[in-house]
């Protein structure tokens, strides 16, 4: 088993799991999840082996693992030209592979517990709706409810289907990461888009879920069609989509100098912009961010995996991968940086006003992705990758943790039987640190990592590097925006932690919350481990006291992906101080404000504009969705097709009809029929009428006539022949 073959095989187990579950083992829940988790385990194993091997290669960027591409599409001039596809493991894909494999495995495992494997089937559970609980006979571990029965969480009716879908999704992500060309990257991209749709709409019988799924698909598709154009453009100009060939000196130079004819951009600039629009959609940047918060309708593992760790990261990954191309044009870079920084701040401001535990995290994801994109826009390549990896770990952790919290809350809801209480509303929580300790501590670690708590969390190192890079290269606007966003991040994170875990339980449901099973808490612990330690592989060299103790492995390794190894930024104390200030300040401030807030009414930050996400959904609906539907229905279908085109066609029918009638009534009938047809008949009739007078029936008259005629003929003969 060569490394090359192993790389090709990594995406295979999850997709095989998908087919097996869909076609064969659908009915058997245990078998399905075994196949799925087993597949994730196999892919994880393969990824780790490849990763370790990749670590051992000198100058991996110049000598990536991957081997020869294979012929895929026959195309073009001669009968032997092919479009080739292959696999590539260079430093970027190696580190990405690492976190993808881990997070995928953790989430697969988590899903077993999340969907309540081992629990009985629900009382009124339908496929298509979330499980609602099963009533079991009294032998409970807690005091029974007054009725004498005990309601426990029930197993998800569509259990196997979930694992099939996340298997397909994992396949898509692996394909994307391991591709050596843009086309198969796009294939993985879209497959993930499909799975996102299927999984957001997992509980399809809920109208909100169904609509959220469509919203996600369509919004990302807007980005995707632009990206497709970019790919087609790139392919036509560069003649190839394989990364190594695109990033060859000559090709880049050609692309940078050809004008594209649009907005004064060079070809590279326009391609970069088009590809970036794909990322705006996929990574939920402004203005295509509206789908991600609604995507929280999906089960929490979905939110964790797709909408935190992997799919949305794919957008950033693609920009990182295409960095040598995108960085050629300063306008495109400026656009990238602007969108990233703006989104980071914009989303953070919305997050402070959200009450749903998952929504906060959703906006947080958007914001953090903005950080990464802004980093790329200002050229901070390694920082962006670093943050990508650390964010994947701690955001997955946070989402899984929130899922654990929700599970605990649902336990309480089932216990009290009061289904009006929203288990996801943070204002219904409180004091959960005592009831769910493992969840609490891991969530705390994740939250601190997100906020950038110094030294001991990975988020600090990655975020600090972005800020340092922005400051060091003079991008002040970006620096300030990101710093403010970081402050808000810490603030709303602490708000979230305070409201959820600290203080006292605000509702009875929170009082009856319970810790979740090991299948859910083990992944939390493992991810927490990474959230703490991963930062230490990228400590900058000149960091006070700690710098230089361990080499900045990350910078060396990932920096090797680019043809020109990026310089580490000069160390300056200002960004470091800013980081410390915003992180610690935000956390403290958040705790101070929210430790005394007990309900939404008391929360002064529930400003309607923020709470309603700046009304973007409403604006989009009014400006795009409804007019599109109106355009489709009224203009195209009713007016153009039915009234105009069919109207013209329908002229032919009556016109032909009238023409036919006219010909019949004005020509056929009078002239042909009456004049010629009837006319000749009438004439003949008249003649006959006149002639029949001869037929008297009287013999003597006949004889007389015969005689006369005979004499006449005789006279004629005599005169003509004989005379």
């Amino acid at each position, binding site marked *: 088993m060569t490394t090359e073959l192993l790389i090709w095989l990594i995406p295979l187990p999850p997709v095989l799991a998908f087919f097996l579950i869909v076609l064969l083992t659908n009915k058997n829940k245990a078998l399905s999840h075994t196949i799925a988790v087993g597949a994730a385990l196999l892919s994880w194993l393969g990824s780790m082996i490849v990763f370790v091997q990749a670590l051992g290669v000198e100058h991996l960027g110049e000598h990536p693992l991957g081997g020869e591409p294979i012929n895929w599409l026959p195309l073009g001039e001669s009968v032997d030209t092919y479009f080739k596809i292959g696999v590539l493991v260079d430093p970027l894909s190696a580190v990405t592979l690492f976190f993808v494999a881990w997070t995928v495995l953790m989430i697969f495992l988590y899903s077993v517990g999340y969907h309540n494997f081992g629990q009985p089937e629900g009382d009124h559970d339908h496929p298509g709706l979330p499980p609602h609980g099963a009533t079991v006979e009294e032998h409970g571990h807690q005091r029974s409810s007054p009725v004498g029965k005990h309601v426990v969480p029930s197993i998800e009716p569509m259990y196997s289907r979930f694992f099939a879908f996340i298997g397909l999704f994992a396949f898509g992500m692996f394909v994307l990461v391991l591709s050596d060309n843009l086309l198969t990257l796009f294939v993985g991209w879209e497959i993930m888009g499909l799975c996102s749709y299927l999984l957001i709409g997992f509980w399809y019988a809920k109208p909100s879920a169904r609509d959220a799924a469509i919203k996600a698909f369509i919004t990302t598709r807007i980005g995707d069609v632009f990206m497709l154009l970019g790919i087609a453009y790139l392919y036509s100009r560069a003649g190839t989509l394989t990364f190594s060939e695109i990033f060859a000196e000559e090709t880049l130079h050609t692309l940078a100098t050809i004008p594209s004819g649009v907005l004064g951009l060079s070809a590279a600039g326009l391609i970069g912009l088009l590809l970036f629009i794909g990322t705006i959609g996929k990574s939920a940047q402004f203005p295509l961010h509206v789908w991600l918060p609604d995507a929280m309708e999906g089960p929490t593992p979905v939110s964790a995996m797709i909408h935190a760790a992997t799919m949305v990261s794919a957008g950033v990954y693609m920009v990182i991968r295409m960095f040598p191309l995108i960085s050629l044009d300063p306008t495109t870079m400026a656009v990238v940086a602007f969108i990233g920084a703006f989104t980071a701040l914009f989303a953070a401001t919305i997050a402070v006003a959200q009450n749903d535990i998952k929504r906060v995290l959703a906006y947080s994801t958007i914001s953090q992705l903005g950080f990464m994109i802004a980093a790329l826009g200002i050229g901070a390549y390694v920082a962006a990758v670093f943050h990508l990896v650390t964010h994947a770990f701690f955001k997955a952790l946070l989402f899984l943790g929130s899922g654990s919290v929700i599970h605990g809350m649902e336990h309480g809801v089932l216990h009290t039987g009061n289904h009006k209480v929203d288990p996801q509303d943070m204002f219904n929580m409180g004091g959960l640190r005592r009831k769910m300790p493992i969840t609490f501590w891991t969530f705390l670690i994740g939250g601190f990592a997100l906020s950038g708590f110094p030294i001991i969390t990975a988020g600090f190192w990655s975020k600090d590097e972005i800020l340092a890079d922005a400051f060091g290269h003079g991008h002040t606007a970006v620096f300030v925006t990101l710093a403010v966003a970081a402050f808000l991040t810490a603030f709303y994170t602490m708000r979230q932690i305070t409201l959820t875990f600290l203080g006292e339980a605000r509702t009875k449901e929170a009082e009856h919350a319970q810790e979740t099973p090991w299948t859910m808490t083990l992944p939390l612990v493992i991810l927490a481990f990474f959230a703490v330690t991963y930062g230490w592989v990228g400590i900058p060299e000149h960091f006070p006291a700690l710098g230089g103790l361990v080499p900045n492995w990350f910078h060396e390794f990932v920096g090797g992906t680019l043809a020109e190894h990026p310089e580490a930024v000069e160390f300056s104390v200002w960004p470091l101080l800013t980081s410390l200030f915003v992180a610690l300040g935000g956390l403290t401030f958040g705790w101070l404000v929210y430790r005394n807030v007990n309900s939404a009414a008391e929360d002064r930050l529930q400003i309607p504009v923020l709470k309603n996400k700046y009304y973007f959904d409403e604006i989009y609906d009014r400006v795009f969705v409804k007019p599109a539907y109106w355009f489709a229905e009224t203009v195209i279908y009713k007016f153009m097709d039915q009234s105009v085109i069919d109207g013209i066609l329908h002229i032919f029918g009556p016109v032909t009809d009238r023409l036919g009638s006219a010909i019949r009534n004005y020509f056929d009938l009078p002239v042909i029929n009456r004049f010629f047809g009837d006319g000749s008949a009438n004439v003949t009739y008249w003649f006959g009428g006149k002639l029949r007078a001869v*037929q*008297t*029936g009287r013999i003597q008259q006949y004889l007389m006539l015969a005689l006369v005629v005979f004499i006449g003929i005789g006279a004629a003969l005599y005169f003509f022949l004989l005379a």
Partner: protein
Amino acid sequence: MVPLSWYLIFAAALFSIGLFGVLSRRNAVAILLGIELMLNSVNINLAAFWRYGDVLQMTGQVFAIIVFAVAAAEVAVGLALVISVYRRRNTVVADEINMMKW
């Protein structure tokens, strides 16, 4: 001998009288009489031509005898027809037998 023309004139006259009778008599039997007259005039003609032509040739006489036979048959049939018509329509007036009218 009398000249041939006397016989011919005589036959012609008879023929004309017969024709006139056929054409103008009301009674069907009278019409038949007229026809007989015409046939007999033909006979006279035939006999005359025989006598005044080659006497040795029998043709004229034979022809005249055939005419006799035909005339007789014809009268028989004719009278039978007239009687049949009379039985149906109770008339022998030729003008009233006009069922073949248009």
